[in-house]
């Protein structure tokens, strides 16, 4: 069975020192599904997302991405960390979009988008340039390829960042509050790109405070609080008719 584009997490645990940030998190994302993680600040949403592409390591629990154990191989006694090269290879199949865009300021928009294919996948430069142009056009930035990140607005930078992640042809896209650092009038253009992506069947896991967007595109919603997956289920159910008290209280505050 092809498990591309799936995420399965069981009883994920993660601590910083004595502070446990993730407590037995369960999460399943099916291929092509859009999942949103919501919850108050400090509840561990970013940490969960960062564990899924290896920016943080988990202490315990099962994590399968694209059907494979991520970052570790299961042995009789324990999970053993894979070599950096193997980890890097697994990461190439997961796109990550950051709150602060994190474009490379020393490269033009086009070079940013090309950086993955050329520097990591060692693809042909001209073909990658062509692909970068197409992706930039797709996110509505035709003709902006020669600009440096500092010359672009926040919303434009974030769209370049999405194009950069897409250039690796990932099976899964992770978004960590992609619109939180944007001016309100810039949020829409980024959400439009993400909506488009969702429509094309990309598996997406996103942390967001945009409840309207979550309600519109999400299949599933996970509500986290203090490192616990409080409630998980159908997006309309959780957002419209939450079962848990904590979810209700949170939604009342943000809506």
């Amino acid at each position, binding site marked *: 069975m092809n498990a591309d584009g799936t995420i399965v997490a069981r009883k994920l645990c993660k601590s910083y020192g004595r502070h446990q940030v993730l407590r037995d998190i369960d999460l399943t994302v099916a291929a092509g599904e859009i999942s949103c993680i919501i919850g108050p600040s400090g509840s561990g949403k970013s940490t969960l997302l960062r564990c899924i*592409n*290896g*920016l943080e390591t988990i202490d315990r629990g099962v994590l399968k991405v694209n059907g494979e154990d991520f970052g570790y191989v299961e042995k009789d006694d324990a999970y053993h960390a894979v070599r*950096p*090269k193997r980890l*890097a*290879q697994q*990461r*190439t199949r*997961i*796109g*990550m979009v*950051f709150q*602060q865009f*994190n*474009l*490379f*300021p*020393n*490269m*033009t928009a086009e*070079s940013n988008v*090309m*950086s*993955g294919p*050329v*520097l*990591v996948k060692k693809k042909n*430069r001209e073909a990658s340039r062509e692909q970068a142009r197409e992706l930039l056009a797709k996110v509505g930035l035709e003709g*902006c390829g020669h*600009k*440096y990140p*500092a*010359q*672009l*607005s*926040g919303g*434009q930078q974030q769209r370049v*960042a999405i194009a*950069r*992640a897409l250039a*690796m042809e990932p099976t899964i896209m992770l978004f960590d509050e992609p619109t939180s650092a944007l*001016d309100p009038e810039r949020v829409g253009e980024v959400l439009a790109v993400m909506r488009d992506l969702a429509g094309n069947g990309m598996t997406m896991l996103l942390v967001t405070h945009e409840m309207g967007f979550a309600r519109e595109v999400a299949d599933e919603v996970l509500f986290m609080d203090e490192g616990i997956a409080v409630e998980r289920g159908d997006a309309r159910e959780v957002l419209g008719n939450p079962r848990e008290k904590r979810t209700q209280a949170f939604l009342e505050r943000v809506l």
Partner: protein
Amino acid sequence: MSQLLAEEKKRITPKRPRDYVTWAVAIAIVAGLVWTAVTNENYRWPVVFSYFTTQSILNGLLITLVLTAVSMALSTLLGLVLAVMRMSHQRPVSGLAQLYIAFFRGTPVLVQLIFWFNIAALYPHISIGIPFTDISTPVNVNAIMTPLTAAVVGLTLNQAAYMSEIIRGGFASVPRGQHEAAESLGMSGFTKLRRVIIPQTMPSVVPATGNQVIGMLKETSLVSVLGVADLLNSAQSIYARNYQTIPLLIVASLWYLIMTLVLSVPQSMIERRFSRSTRARLTPAATSAEPGAGQPVPATRESLL
């Protein structure tokens, strides 16, 4: 006399006595210095001029320049290696780098130079070979540790400790998110450093390195004690014969001064260029709806892709 309207009157700060006094004192000091330089026969300016472009002085000048360039180039490379080691998560690796830096910054360069020149007293013979094979060549340390090699080795090893701290500072100025973005694309550690991180360290590393070059140029004068025929040593050789000590020291000083002044021109250009940082948000156009008017101000050329 036409009466000015109050609204049209300029606002001025009347000069006070202190404004004239500072000028007067400064002029007096400079004039005094020039006066004694001109009138004191002991300066022997004709001697200064006659030796200024003498062949052996020019040769010394060349050696000083070559020594500066070679030592700076080698120490920058070694400094980069040390900086990367210093930031390693492997304690033994970062510990070794720390030890190196502490040792070479904690002892005087002059002592280090003399030490390397006499290293044969510690290790008269070493043999360079490939471990676990019979291939090896014995090396007579005394023969290879000429004054010039000792000078290059001493200056390089010392300077590398300072360069590594400069480069480490450059690395520290790159936000964590840049590492994360590169890693999430699956870049290897080496590619990440070379293509993403190191180019971004340039705005802080290049100007600081420029200062080190100017410092190194003067520091090379220390190698004269080893008998390397650099600028200072060449001047010394001449006055050892003709006892024109002061004029020849002036010749050497003037050349050092000229070289540092010449170097300070590109240095200040570099500083100005890099102080308009890339990371700073640019023109208002960059945030407006149509960002076409943004000025391209990349501090580091996009040389990579």
